């Protein structure tokens, strides 16, 4: 069963390169953009999957980190674009158009936010945890709306995509390559994480927290660390998403996005390494196929989702690769 999942994982990644390469050779930049969107939203889902799939933490507030990543990009780039420093005191902080710097800032700040939100939310569990994570994300949403310096409700446009040393990021296929490499590196990290002592203990705490306490490990610390790692990855995805659209707005903090991230994870299969990527690919394909047929395509999405939850639990990967998540 595990073999099959590995082969499937390879096929998914190959497909994710093949489609944009084909689109590139046949001059379809829009398809490349869609593939980039899959890679970026898949990355956000991979982040969530660490908390949700491995840790069993149903966060309905991951848009918070996605949005912080987006605004990290928006704020830094808008200052650079206007040649106005962010701060002059106590030390001079200038904006930047450099992607690596923006990513670093996005990761650090979404990690800090995850530390704060997680420290509070993880004092509770179950349905409280769901509602509280949702509420904190909503808080940032309203803050972004009511803070006029960075566009308020209207958001901010960044006119030229940020730069990466040695690449022309304005070329869709080159920007896709950046997001794809980041996705693969994160997946590799995630695969290591799941097999590491930390990942093992985290998965154990999901299944039987009392057992984990009995061997002297504190589940709270495990979960908090997982939540922070998860938030950092989703934050990085947010920065990339903002760069993809060259636009940030409070909707990046919106709770629909939190819901969709969960949908990616579940559609693909909870706790599966590539589940979120498969889920994002299905979601975006549906959006464009069904969206072309009907303006009200989300009805079909809703029905499909109901079907997955009520009938095909375990997600698409389970249907193709067999039920059990592989071990050992």
């Amino acid at each position, binding site marked *: 069963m595990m073999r099959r999942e590995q082969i499937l994982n390879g096929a998914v990644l190959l497909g994710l390169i093949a489609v944009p390469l084909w689109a590139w050779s046949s001059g379809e930049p829009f398809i490349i953009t869609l593939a980039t969107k899959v890679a970026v939203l898949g990355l956000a889902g991979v982040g969530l999957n660490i908390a*949700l799939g491995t840790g069993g933490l*149903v966060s*309905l507030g991951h848009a918070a980190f996605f949005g912080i990543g987006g605004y990290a990009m928006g704020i830094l780039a808008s200052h650079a674009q206007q040649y106005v420093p962010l701060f002059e005191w106590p030390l001079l902080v200038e904006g930047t158009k450099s992607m690596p710097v923006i990513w670093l800032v996005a990761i650090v700040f979404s990690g800090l936010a995850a530390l704060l939100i997680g420290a*509070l*939310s993880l*004092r*509770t569990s*179950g*349905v*409280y945890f*769901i*509602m*509280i994570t*949702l*509420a*904190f994300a*909503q*808080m940032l949403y*309203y*803050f972004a*709306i*009511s*803070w*006029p*310096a960075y566009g308020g409700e209207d958001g901010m446009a960044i006119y030229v995509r940020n730069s990466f040393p040695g690449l022309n990021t304005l070329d869709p296929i080159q920007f896709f390559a950046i997001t794809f490499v980041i996705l693969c590196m994160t997946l590799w990290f995630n695969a290591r994480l799941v097999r590491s002592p930390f990942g093992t203990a985290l998965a154990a705490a999901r299944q039987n927290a009392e057992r984990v306490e009995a061997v002297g490990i504190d589940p709270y610390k495990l979960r908090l660390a997982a939540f922070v790692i998860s938030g950092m990855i989703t934050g990085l995805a947010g920065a990339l998403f903002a760069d993809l659209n060259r636009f940030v707005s409070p909707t990046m903090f919106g*709770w629909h996005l939190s*819901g969709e991230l*969960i*949908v990616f994870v*579940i559609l693909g299969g*909870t706790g599966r390494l590539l589940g979120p990527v498969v889920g994002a690919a299905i979601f975006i394909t549906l959006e464009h196929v069904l969206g072309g047929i009907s303006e*009200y*395509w*989300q*009805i079909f*999405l*809703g*029905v*499909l*989702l*109901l079907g*997955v*939850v*009520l009938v095909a*639990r375990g997600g698409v990967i389970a249907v193709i690769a067999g039920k059990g998540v592989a071990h050992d």
Partner: protein
Amino acid sequence: MTIILLIEQVLNGLQFGVMLFLMAAGLTLVFGVMGLINLAHGSLYMVGAFAAAAVAGATGSFLLAMAAALGAAAIAGVIVEMLVIRRLYDRDHLDQVLATFALILIFSEGTRWIFGSFPLYLNIPPYLSGPITLPGDIQYPLYRLVIIGVGLLVAAGLFLLISRTRLGIRIRAGESDREMIAALGVNISVLYTIVFALGAALAGLAGALVGAIQSVQVGMGEPVLILAFVVIVIGGIGSITGALVGSLLVGLTDTLGRTLLPVLFGTFMEASAATTVGAAIASMLIYILMAVVLIFRPTGLYGAR
């Protein structure tokens, strides 16, 4: 800042809080009795508002509109409960979140499909519009007072229902011991449908009442739903008293925060900056309140410890 303005804002806060209570009461009952987290509760709020706007548009009667809101939301509640929700009681919270998220998509897009994307308007009837003069020469819109009155009546009715009636006894029994009341011959699935429909009707009523102040549009239920979650986290899941206290706390904190914080910041900041900072912080105030409650009482003010 005059005392009159302050009293007005307190009344606004009460009105807001009472609305939140109508939403939160249903959510907390459904969670307490069936153990279900229902994200689609906001959709029932929307259903109520649209039903009211449609009936008011057709008949011109505000009372009929309110009745339609209650009825439509309750019927929608019954249908949804029988088709989807009852399959979720034994599932984990993740499945419940997803399935009810799917319901939101269906409800929202379905409503957009039927009514279009433009907001509808529900007018306050003449006999409820206009300001009235309260003791102390305070002018206050009659309609908002009516909302406060209706909300408090519903709250009182709900407390009576829970504490005095046979249905209420069964609801309370359902919260503590499902198997036992099933063993006593109570038809549990009918009880669940009734509780869900009751919560739905309250949400529908809230949507219709608010629909006359704001516009009636797709997605209107979602911000209210999230506020109702904050209320429940503060009040404690499953507690009607907690829902009432939480609602009023959130309503008053939010309304007064938006009025008072800019003034407060204005005492030591330049006026326009004070407005900006004050408004931004006011928008976060109830979440900060929630965080503070969480630190001291992780299960809410009235939650089981």
